[in-house]
Structure formats: structure tokens, C-alpha cells
């Protein structure tokens, strides 16, 4: 593989990684909650979308819209019914709740769909936008990147320009002060979780269109999401895009220079180096306490 190919593919893969990490970044940024079920919830969205497209809608995008609705509702219920009840008791109980959700989802998916690898059939994954002797760009990789940038820009606008976004940012800055301004922070947390699940649904579909998946794949994507948000800066939306691109690049360039077996090793060495040099992430401000 040519180095140009590795760089281009790395950047485009980074877009998908950014989308995978986006929901986790949002939840951590607002609630300081590490959602250990993020990868499994995303894969849950992938399965829902696959079933809807194959058996009901026949249209992948209509299936995505319904999946987003289902995931938003699921996210709201998880936060409102479970996490909000323990979020005031420190990070430990919330972490355990999300870990429990992760185990439940994995086993439910295993029971319903079995352990076999699946894929969401689509035309994008088998076609190329550019196919030359020097460079090949797969349609699905380009679609991943465009959707990721679109979703991140859309979310940034919501956060910056709407009163809902303002209330979410206020709740993130200082929950008690926000409540003193009349903001129902628990409601904001539930809406944030719902918003994160909407992004997870989109990421889930794209993952399912790009790679094969099975009930326990969520754990792999949880680790990728961790890498993305730690590199970019926990809670920073643009940082998530940067983190995704760096992780994607590190992985593909690692594969180019050292062989495919070293892809993930190089990616996580880069993660550790960034953590050592800039613990708050590249685009997040240092916490002043």
C-alpha cells in the first residue's frame, strides 16, 4: 500500500472512529460519566437497523430513522430510569450501571442473533469513488467521513446556538449553579444521553455497512471510542474528530510501516504518548481546580 493511500484511508477511517466516539464524548463532557455500554448500545443500533432494513422497511435510510427514534427513547429511559438515580452518588455506581447494561445487551444480542458475524448489505461497501493505480477511495469510507463531519458540525451548532445547548453546557459547567438558574439538570442529562444514542445509531449503521459485526463487537468499539475521546479531549466535539483522524492515521500508517499486525499497537502507542504529553487531550482545556 502506498503511503498516500495509507494517509487517505487513515483520515477517512478516522471519520468513522470520530462518529463512534462522539456519543461517549458527549456523555462524558456533560455528565462526567464514562458509559461502558457505549459500544454495545451502538452495536445494538446496528442490529436493530439490520433487522428493520431486511424485514420491514427494505430501505436502509428509513431503517436508520426508525433506529434513531428507538435509540433516543432507549437512551432517555436508561439515563432517566437508571443512571440518574445513582449519578449523585459518585462515578462508581454509574460506572457499574453502564457495565451492567453492557453485559445485558451483549447477552441479549447473543440469544436473539447468535454468535455469527453479520453485515448490513449495501451498495456503498462494494463500490469505489476513486479507483486508480495509485489511490483507491471506497464509497463507504467517504460516506463515513462525510456523515461524521456532518453530524459533528450539526451537534456543535445545537450546542452553541440553541437554548437547549446552552442549558446542556451550563449543566456541564456547574450542575448546581445551573439548577439555581432553573435548569432541570437531570432532564438535560437524559436528553444528552438520548442525543448520544442518536449519534450511536448513525455510527452503528455505518459500522455495520463497513465491517462485519457480532454481539461482542461492542467491546472493540468501546476501546476505539475511548481512544478517540482521550486523544481529542473528553467533551470536545471538534476534538473527537481530530482524535478519530489521529487514531485512524496512526493505525493505517502503523500498518504501512510495520505491517498490519502492528496497526492497533501503533495506534495505542500514539494514544499513550498524547496522554503523557497532554493528559487533557489535544483540544480540551486543562481543568482548573
Amino acid at each position, binding site marked *: 500500500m502506498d503511503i498516500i493511500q495509507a494517509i487517505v484511508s487513515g483520515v477517512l477511517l478516522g471519520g468513522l472512529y470520530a462518529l463512534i466516539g462522539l456519543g461517549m464524548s458527549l456523555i462524558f463532557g456533560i455528565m462526567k460519566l464514562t458509559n461502558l455500554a457505549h459500544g454495545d448500545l451502538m452495536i445494538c443500533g446496528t442490529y436493530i437497523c439490520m433487522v428493520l432494513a431486511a424485514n420491514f422497511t427494505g430501505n436502509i435510510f428509513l431503517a436508520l430513522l426508525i433506529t434513531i427514534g428507538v435509540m433516543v427513547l432507549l437512551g432517555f429511559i436508561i439515563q432517566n430510569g437508571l443512571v440518574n438515580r445513582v449519578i449523585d452518588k459518585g462515578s462508581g455506581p454509574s460506572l457499574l450501571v453502564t457495565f451492567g447494561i453492557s453485559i445485558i445487551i451483549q447477552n441479549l444480542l447473543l440469544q436473539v442473533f447468535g454468535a455469527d458475524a453479520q453485515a448490513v448489505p449495501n451498495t456503498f461497501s462494494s463500490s469505489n469513488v476513486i479507483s486508480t493505480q495509485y489511490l483507491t477511495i471506497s464509497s463507504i469510507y467517504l460516506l463515513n467521513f462525510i456523515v461524521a463531519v456532518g453530524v459533528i458540525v450539526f451537534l456543535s451548532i445545537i450546542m452553541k446556538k440553541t437554548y437547549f445547548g446552552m442549558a446542556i453546557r*451550563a449543566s456541564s*459547567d456547574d450542575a448546581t449553579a*445551573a*439548577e439555581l438558574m*432553573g*435548569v*432541570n439538570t437531570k432532564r438535560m442529562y437524559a436528553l444528552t444521553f438520548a442525543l448520544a444514542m442518536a449519534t450511536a445509531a448513525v455510527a452503528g449503521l455505518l459500522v455495520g455497512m463497513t465491517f462485519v459485526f457480532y454481539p461482542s463487537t461492542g467491546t472493540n468499539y468501546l476501546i476505539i471510542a475511548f481512544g478517540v475521546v482521550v486523544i481529542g479531549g473528553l467533551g470536545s466535539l471538534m476534538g473527537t474528530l481530530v482524535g478519530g483522524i489521529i487514531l485512524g492515521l496512526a493505525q493505517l500508517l502503523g500498518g504501512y510501516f510495520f505491517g498490519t499486525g502492528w496497526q492497533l499497537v501503533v495506534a495505542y502507542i500514539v494514544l499513550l504518548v498524547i496522554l503523557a504529553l497532554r493528559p487533557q487531550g489535544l483540544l480540551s482545556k486543562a481543568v482548573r481546580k
Partner: protein
Amino acid sequence: MNVVLTVEDLGISFGSNHVLKSLSFEVGENEVLGVIGPNGAGKTVMLNILTGILKATKGKVSFMGNDITKKSVTERCRMGFGRTFQVPRTFENMTVFENVIVGGVYGDHLSERQAKERAVEMLELIGLLDRADWMAGKLSLLDRKRLEIGRALASNPKILMFDEVAGGLTESEVEGILQIVQNIKDRGISIVWIEHVLKTMREGTDRILCLAEGRNVICDKPDTVMNSKEVCELYLGAEEDEPRQKNS
């Protein structure tokens, strides 16, 4: 005088530590009630209970005749409570304008246009209109204290709680705060004001409540409280005329 806030037999304990034992007082409409007391007297804990951040172990808090003892922080804000903190807790990653607008939209359910008008009005009142687009985290201590006041005012409170709003400020800065307090009072808003700067308390309040060991020692006109034997003994030291010397 119409009573806005009534506190009856309020108490709170953290394990065996009885921070507030039995506290009762009233705040009238358009009244500024100063609260003084030595460190550890329970002043800030009292504000935390009044604003709903802490739940009292015993006692009752009534606001405009309604029992609000079990109301949440958000509900109290929407009923007309506002508050500032000893160390300002502005939304540092938001602009000055956004800080104020949150209060109008969520605390007083204003429309977008009304919230913007309210924000401009409040920023004018606190003298921060020229820095409306600054990030709150970039402001000086005085300006962050002013912003907290403006933000609280944007939610259209009927009563404001200040926790050492003059603490850490220079004498001229304190004068500015006193002017803001007077402007707030002119709007018919009641204030409960914790402060260690006694000169400010004397000049800026209608009555002063002195707290010690979780109880109200005395609550009266500023001069009466400052010169009382109880305050001399419990708050300022053993000598009766010491407060007069300290405040002269």
C-alpha cells in the same frame, strides 16, 4: 411588613456534628437581612438549605406563605429564589451574555426576545454590558461576582441570597457592590446577605442576624446588633466595645 421568607426551627446534622441546631427568622418584602457569625457558625449551610442544595434534618422553610421545605433547587429558582456563591460559580465556558440568558429562559420561562432584552437590562445594571461577549472565565473576581448577581437577577427572583459577595474585594469595589445591592432593593427584591465585612453589613442591610453555634444569637437593626453584648462576646471577642473599634 409583608413576610417573604419564614424559617422555623431549622436544623441540620452531619453525623454527630450538629451544624444548625435551631434557627428561626423572617425576611420581609424588600428587606436586606445581613447574616454574620464566626467561621463554622453555619451561615453557608443555612443558605444551602434555603436554596434546596442541602436538605434540613428538621424545621420548616416557607416562601410567600407556601411550605417549600421539600422543593428542589430548580423548583425554588422558578418560585423566585436567586443565589450567589462565596467563590463565584459562573459558567466559565460560556459568554457573559449566555450566562445571563440561561437565567431568563429557564428560571423565568422567557421567550428568546424577552430573554435577550432581560439579559441586556441586567448586564447594564451590573455594568458588564461592554463585556457581554467575553468568556466568563476570563473575567476578574469582581466582575464574576457581578455576573453571578446579574445571572441570578435574570431569573426574576423575589429573594436573593448573597454569600460573601464583598469578600476579597477592595474598598472601592465594595462600594460598587453596595450600589448594586441598593439598585436591587429598589426593584423590590428581598436579600439575605452573608458577609464578614462588618462595615458593609452596617451600611447595606436593614437588619442583621448573628449566628453562632447553629443558633440565632440576635436579630435586630445593624447598629443594635453591632453594639450588642452578645455579638461582642460570641462573634468579635470578649470585650464589649471591640466591634466599635474594629468598625471605626
